[in-house]
């Protein structure tokens, strides 16, 4: 220490303090040393044995999701016990031979298994469990169990399989479940922060009500402690849940999710889907009670959600995804279409209320109408002659409504029609509803930067041009005619109940607007105006020249309107080319929206059949079937009475009913 220099006097003062520090360090060393001696030398052998043979591994027990029931308690979604095959990548010693063995039993190509394992290792690390196949058959379980001991990493686990007894009948409404995606995981953890915690590999609702109800029907996962040996295989031994100190591990039971009761009627739902299927139609249907309770919800073509629950094969999936008519899409709320003629009653309401016409005004409706120099055609070459508003609705005259459109102008039409629910989201609980569009001059200026053209009033008045709607919007709008002004919010979730039946959440009909009361725009529609339009709609289905007169239900009068939505524009000479002779994707969509009974409505049904050419032949029979099923179930006496009356009428020879096929040309 020859080189040492410093104000020794100063620093020397600390000398006694160092002793205490040295002392503390020595004590710590001795403490740790003796503790290590105790653990590693005294308890070492026991702990070594424990670490080699018995390992307690934490594992998650997935909680079953809640059931989904229809309005009378019939099951729409349930849980079935099943088995799934999983792999723990960290235990696999020979990937290729494992893939060969397991693949032959599960009939999956070995390369796919190997790829899956390699990809999961890369993406999720070596410890993430891989689901190989869910819903194993008895045979598969039996054969897997035999090779399990020689196949480290392979496990057969009990699982819960979500089962959809309605199969494809309600696929888009109910949705399906699947593993949470990496992108969804942080989003949902944020959305449900403090209530639910999602982890990689969790099964969650992907679409439809399964998704919308996630926060309500999800259960709380439990934990169990299993012993595994050095190869990751579960071992069954005497004290399976005690540790080396003889302490008991607490298992945590999973908690079953709450059940949801819907407003859906399972019988009606099946009848509605069958109507689409037997008539070989694609499109969408929404049936609701006049207070907004949804009874049936169909989107066709469909798919079987049970395939998704049990792990769908890539071929089957790509077939669904690439189908040009989009089975996965929920057409009730996600497909835009022009309303076509089903828009006319709303224009009639505006024209009557604005005193453009009275119920008795007679308007000349020829086959062609010239606005400026441009001809606007009716669907019937000869036109309809001199008609009142009743006739115009019954026969669906275009020219009559062209004239109304010119007189009203788009902004007055907007003020009446938008509040009835057209061009805005209905607020149904399902995700990804589109809003549709009800244009006005302000909208055009804002979005297109152009002035509203007078000619556009004509196309708007017959539901073409910019107007875009969804089937659910049309159901709500027609329902507001049926109820004479009441705009309801549609809903499908009636209540959420726990496993003991206690009601946790309850939803009731919600009146959004009553348009017979003065709105903020100063507009209201008198009940008498509604009565005129309702009579027109009654004649559509019951009048001699009604466009939907061929479909009747004994004892029940329907009231509604047919419509055709042009998929693409055609030049004047092509307008009269028969729709049915065009290729499928160029054919028009057909609409029929109706309520029944005409006098005192209980149910409203909107149907859009895509590429069916006509509303009366394409959609009206489906609506009729659904309404008939409804009354057969809830008011069979009305139908019986109707049949009796018809029989009496037949005895007295009046006129034979016309069973002939409708003339498609008579509807626009």
């Amino acid at each position, binding site marked *: *220490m*020859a*080189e*040492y*220099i*410093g*104000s020794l006097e*100063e*620093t020397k*003062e*600390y*000398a006694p*303090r*160092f002793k*205490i*520090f*040295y002392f*503390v*360090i020595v004590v*710590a*060393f001795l*403490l*740790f*040393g003796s*503790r*290590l*001696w105790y*653990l*590693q*030398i005294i308890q*070492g*052998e*026991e*702990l*070594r044995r*424990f*670490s*080699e043979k018995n*390992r*307690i*591994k*934490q594992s998650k027990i997935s909680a079953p999701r809640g059931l989904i029931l229809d309005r009378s308690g019939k099951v729409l979604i349930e849980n079935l016990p099943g088995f799934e095959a999983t792999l723990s990548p*960290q235990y*696999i010693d020979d990937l290729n031979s494992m893939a060969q063995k397991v693949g032959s039993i599960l009939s999956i190509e070995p390369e796919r298994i190997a790829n899956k394992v390699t990809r999961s*290792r*890369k993406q999720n*690390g*070596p*410890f993430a469990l891989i689901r190989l196949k869910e819903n194993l058959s008895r045979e598969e379980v039996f054969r897997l169990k035999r090779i399990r001991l020689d196949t480290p990493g392979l496990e057969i686990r009990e699982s819960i399989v979500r089962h959809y007894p309605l199969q494809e009948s309600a696929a888009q409404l109910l949705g399906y479940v699947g593993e949470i995606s990496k992108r969804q995981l942080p989003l949902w953890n944020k959305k449900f922060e403090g209530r639910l915690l999602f982890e990689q590999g969790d099964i969650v609702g992907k679409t439809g009500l399964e998704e919308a109800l996630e926060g309500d029907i999800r259960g709380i996962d439990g*934990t169990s*402690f299993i012993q595994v040996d*050095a190869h990751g295989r579960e071992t069954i031994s005497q004290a399976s849940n005690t*540790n*080396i*100190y003889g*302490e*008991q*591990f*607490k298992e*945590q039971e999973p908690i079953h999710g709450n059940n949801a009761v819907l407003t859906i009627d399972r019988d009606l739902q099946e009848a509605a889907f069958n109507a689409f299927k037997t008539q070989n139609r694609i499109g969408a249907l929404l049936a609701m009670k006049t207070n907004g309770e949804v009874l049936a919800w169909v989107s066709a073509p469909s798919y079987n959600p049970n395939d998704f629950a049990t792990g769908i094969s890539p071929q089957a999936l790509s077939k669904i995804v690439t189908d040009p008519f989009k089975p996965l899409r929920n057409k009730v709320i996600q497909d835009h279409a022009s309303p076509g003629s089903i828009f006319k009653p709303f224009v009639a309401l505006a024209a009557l209320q604005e005193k453009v016409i009275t119920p008795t005004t007679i308007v000349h409706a020829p086959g062609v109408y010239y606005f400026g120099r441009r001809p606007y055609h009716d669907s019937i070459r000869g036109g309809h002659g001199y008609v009142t508003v009743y006739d115009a609705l019954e026969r669906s005259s275009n020219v009559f409504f062209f004239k109304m459109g010119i007189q009203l102008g788009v902004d007055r039409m907007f003020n009446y029609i938008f509040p009835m629910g057209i061009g805005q989201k209905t607020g149904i609980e399902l995700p990804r509803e589109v809003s549709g569009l009800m244009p006005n001059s302000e909208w055009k200026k804002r979005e297109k930067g152009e002035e509203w053209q007078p000619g556009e009033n004509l196309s708007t008045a017959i539901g073409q041009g910019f107007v875009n709607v969804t089937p659910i919007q049309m159901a709500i709008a027609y329902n507001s005619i049926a109820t004479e002004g009441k705009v309801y919010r549609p809903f499908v979730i009636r209540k959420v109940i726990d496993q003991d039946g206690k009601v946790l959440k309850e939803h009731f009909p919600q009146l959004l607007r009553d348009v017979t009361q003065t709105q903020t725009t100063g507009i209201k529609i008198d009940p008498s105006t509604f009565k005129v339009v309702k009579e027109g709609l009654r004649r559509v289905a019951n009048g001699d020249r009604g466009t939907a007169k061929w479909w009747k239900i004994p004892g029940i009068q329907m009231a509604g309107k047919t419509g055709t939505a042009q998929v693409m524009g055609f030049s004047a000479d092509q307008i009269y080319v028969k729709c049915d002779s065009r290729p499928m994707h160029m054919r028009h969509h057909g609409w029929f929206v109706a309520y029944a009974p005409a006098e005192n409505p209980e149910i409203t049904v909107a149907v859009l059949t895509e590429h069916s050419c006509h509303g009366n032949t394409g959609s009206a029979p489906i609506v009729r079937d659904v309404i008939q099923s409804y009354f057969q179930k809830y008011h069979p006496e009305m139908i019986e009475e109707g049949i009796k009356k018809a029989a009496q009428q037949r005895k007295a020879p009046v006129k034979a009913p016309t069973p002939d096929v409708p003339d498609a040309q008579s509807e626009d």
Partner: protein
Amino acid sequence: MNDFVKLEEKPFFRKLDYNFIIVILALNVIGLINLYSATHGPNATEVESLFISQIVWLLAGWTIFFFVTLVDYMFFSRMAILIYALNLLAIIYVTFFGKVALGAQRWIDLGFFRYQPSETMKLGLIIMLAKILSNRSPSGQGMGFRELFVPLLMVIIPFGFVVEQPDLGTAMMLSLIGGSLLFFCKVRRSIIIGALVIMGLAVPIAWEYGLRDYQKNRILTFVSPANDPRGSGYNSIQSRIAVGSGQFIGKGFRQGTQSQLEFLPERHTDFIFSVLSEEHGFVGGILTIGLFGFLFGLALRTAANARDKFGVLVTAGVTAYVFWHMFINIGMVIGLLPIVGVPLPLLSYGGSSMLTTMLALGVVSSVSYRRYLF
């Protein structure tokens, strides 16, 4: 000690304390070997990058170490108030606007690096206290209330914000470091006894009103690990099994089943010592703790030989800093203390811990370097 002035100036390399550097290097090597094992399980793929980035942190750490060695530590004394104030501002910032991790607000995202102000605050506190206390004399009865007021305030202000975050591990670390330095400068016996009594009384109150549920849980779990098998109880038990099963010479490099097969949580960070104990047994564990002891001994010798009081105090402070981290971490791993999220200096994976530790040791090296006048 017989020759106060030596005129010949010694070159840089001869003034370095090589024992000190070799001990740190030895701990680095042990740390890397161990981290390699912890991050290279049988099928690990992504974790390999952790090993590479730890090497990068290590190189950065040594750069800082030598840079600080060359800086006269009196620079820190002059800058003490500024360093302390900046750290305090950063702490206040993260308390209210910082990124949330595990329910506590702790860091600022700098893109390539998550800066945790509470880590550097520990060093800021050491420098600040060393500056203030170098005016106090450690002889006589020790400090009374008047002398203690300012230094205590320096501890309590950051402590309050860190508790608010709520990062109890760091808060405890701040009070342990501050307390050690005050104690080093001698405090009146009556005050020490009084402080112990007050702490004894404060524990039940803090339990009732101060602690969050997860914090209470950790302590309850320590008393009876099987009570919370989902959380820290599981960790604690698995760690004890890992350590014990290492026996005398360990299972061998990369042979630790507990660590290789996922049973150990946080293998590469807080529980790195259990990997070491499992794979290298009693021998490896004692060797590592012994190296730490040797490191503290060398640091204290540096303190004893320092040129001035600030040098003594700052070195003693750094020793306390590294010592308490090691003590709490290993104590937790071998089941002597409850689970607290504190890394093991020089061995755990993590840039924040590595850089601040090397910075702190660099200050010690600077003090050692400057015991030579020329």
